[in-house]
């Protein structure tokens, strides 16, 4: 192995690490503890141990803390959430490093329940401190992990719709996936619904609690599954480690459907994605349409070889948080830039015209404009147009136009 390729499912309650090599996984609570008198850090069960003995201070809900850019004080020292996350991450990576005796990291994909800009930023900071570049550590959503997990299985498992029930201490979620064929490229569309019927897993420890939970799941199942045709149904999360408490729900699911229990679904999905990042050509030639991915194409008509062609600045299926596209163009007249926003099925089209306000007046075709595209979220595109002048003939100015575009 040239370096470790890991998928990490990072949640507030647990963290699961999967390595496709030997299908090895680790599941630990997402907690970190520092010994009161020393600078020794512990994670997972060990952290609980030191806290119970009384020689350590534990911090939990690391993601929530990171998301609100909070701090925690241990032994009189104030720690930024990102610092704690880095300590936690460093310790987490020790597990596969020790197991395989390999120190170098080739690729990590972290999967989060949902994409959070602050957590992503913190993870990139952690990556840099751990000596990884921004390509070596990528972040995806659970929905995307689900897609990659399913699409790594045999085709008969995803011919029709596929769904996942995820029951964990954090939430109860339903994921649904379908493959859309008939377009230039196959598209895989997946959505996540956080169910309001979520409950505390502690109730499963008592018989009446288990029965109640079974009823809740049955009602959700009936509502969500209806008469849809599923190729496969997956159950994941701590709540489904045992299904003894849910006989009715299992009966409902198993009616003419293939049901699989996969406790490491998200971390394995992330590991499959990580493995794919290491390839020069993807093994998953489809457009991925889910949370964190664009559902529209952003293009611009440009002249090339004397003919008008469409230049794609951002494509449907691209991760919006990774898009930093730029192109240099010469518009004529240099009054505005037109961007074309098209839905993935080409049915909806929208033209966005951004005026080049404040740009200097110059002779025809002597204003070079740098177009920079990035996304603030899945629906908000930020466009920056900078005046690049025309060499020494018409020097560039500091003028730029910044505009947010709702897709």
């Amino acid at each position: 192995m040239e370096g470790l390729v890991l998928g990490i499912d990072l949640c507030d309650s647990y963290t699961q690490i999967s390595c496709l090599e030997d299908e090895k996984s680790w599941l630990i609570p997402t907690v970190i503890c520092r010994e009161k008198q020393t600078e020794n850090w512990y994670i997972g069960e060990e952290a609980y141990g030191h806290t119970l003995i009384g020689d350590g201070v534990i911090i939990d809900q690391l993601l929530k803390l990171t998301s609100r850019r909070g701090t925690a004080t241990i032994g009189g020292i104030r720690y930024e959430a990102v610092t704690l996350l880095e300590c936690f991450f460093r310790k987490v990576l020790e597990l596969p490093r020790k197991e395989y005796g390999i120190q170098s990291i080739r690729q990590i994909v972290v999967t989060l329940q949902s994409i959070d800009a602050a957590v992503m930023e913190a993870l990139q900071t952690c990556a840099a401190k751990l000596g990884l570049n921004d390509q070596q550590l990528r972040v995806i959503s659970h929905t995307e992990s689900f897609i990659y997990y399913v699409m790594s299985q045999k085709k008969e498992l995803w011919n029709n719709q596929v769904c996942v029930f995820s029951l964990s201490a954090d939430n109860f979620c339903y994921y649904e996936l379908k493959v859309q064929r008939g377009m230039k490229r196959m598209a895989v569309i997946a959505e996540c619904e956080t169910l309001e019927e979520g409950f505390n897993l502690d109730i499963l420890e008592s018989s009446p609690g288990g029965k109640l939970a079974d009823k809740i799941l049955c009602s959700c199942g009936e509502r969500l599954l209806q008469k849809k045709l599923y190729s496969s149904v997956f159950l994941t999360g701590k709540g489904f480690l045992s299904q003894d408490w849910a006989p009715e729900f299992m009966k409902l699911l198993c009616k003419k459907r293939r049901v699989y229990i996969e406790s490491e679904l998200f971390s394995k999905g992330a590991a499959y994605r990580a493995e794919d990042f290491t390839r020069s050509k993807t093994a998953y030639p489809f457009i991925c349409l889910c949370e964190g991915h664009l559902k529209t194409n952003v293009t611009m008509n440009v002249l090339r070889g004397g003919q008008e062609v469409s230049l794609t600045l951002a494509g449907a299926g691209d991760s919006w948080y990774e898009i930093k596209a730029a192109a240099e163009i010469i518009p004529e007249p240099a009054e505005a830039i037109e961007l074309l926003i098209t839905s993935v099925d080409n049915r909806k089209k929208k033209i966005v015209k951004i005026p080049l306000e404040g740009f200097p007046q110059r002779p025809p075709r002597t204003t070079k404009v740098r177009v920079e595209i990035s996304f603030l979220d899945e629906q908000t595109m930020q466009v920056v147009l900078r005046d690049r002048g025309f060499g020494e003939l018409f020097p560039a100015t500091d003028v730029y136009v910044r505009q947010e575009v709702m897709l």
Partner: protein
Amino acid sequence: MSVWLCREEPVRRPFYIRELDLHVFSSQELSYVIVNNPLLAMEGFVDERLFTFVREQLDMGFLSLKMERLKHSGESDDEVLCLFLQEAEYCLFAEINAFRQKISGYKKMPLPEYRKEWADYLFRLGQYRKALPVYQKILEMPGDSHISEVFLGIILNNIGACYARLMRYEQAAKAYEKSYFYVKDPEVLKRLYLLTRMEPEPKLSDRGRELMEQAVSPEWEAEYQTVREQAQTSEELKQLEDLFDRDPIRRLQGAGAMITEWKRKYRRMQSTS
């Protein structure tokens, strides 16, 4: 609305065009310069330095090879440049055709007229020292070159203008005197008169003084005074005054930049290479 997509060109060493005192950083700029300066195309613009720039800096190795082959096959420089314009995809077909027509027009011109066009072009670019020998060579052309007296007068007038811009007033005055001999245009005499108002005042020949006495007009002096007044309120003078209003450190910095620019302009107009 049309949008040209710019190629990514890894230009680290720009292409310097001495005649224009210009560094070119992209294929679009090079296309723009060529199409707007067709005379350059006819005066040794196409050489190994251009091929190297296209190959190494614009990363257009194949095009560079095609241009070289075309040149070595004996094709004219303007055809080589047309090939570049087509492949660089910046100019419209109409512009390339217009460029071809202009070149064709220049090629059909009698040699003295073409040389005058080239010298005038250099003059417009402020390259007076370079324009001078081109004008002077026209005067040395043999008698059967179909040069009319009026044409000679114009050439001499332009030589006078070059000398005047180079602040060589004695030679400028001599050229204007000779020019008047051929064209008999009072405008030339006016220029001669205005020269006499410069510092240091040039010495006119006896004939020149005689001409001046006969033709001098109060309007010329009025025009001179108007130009002088305009100069006193010019933007350049205002910039200079602003500079002296600044604190000593910023004044020195500004003065340094201004003098550097003046020197650059002066060297450019004195340049012979």
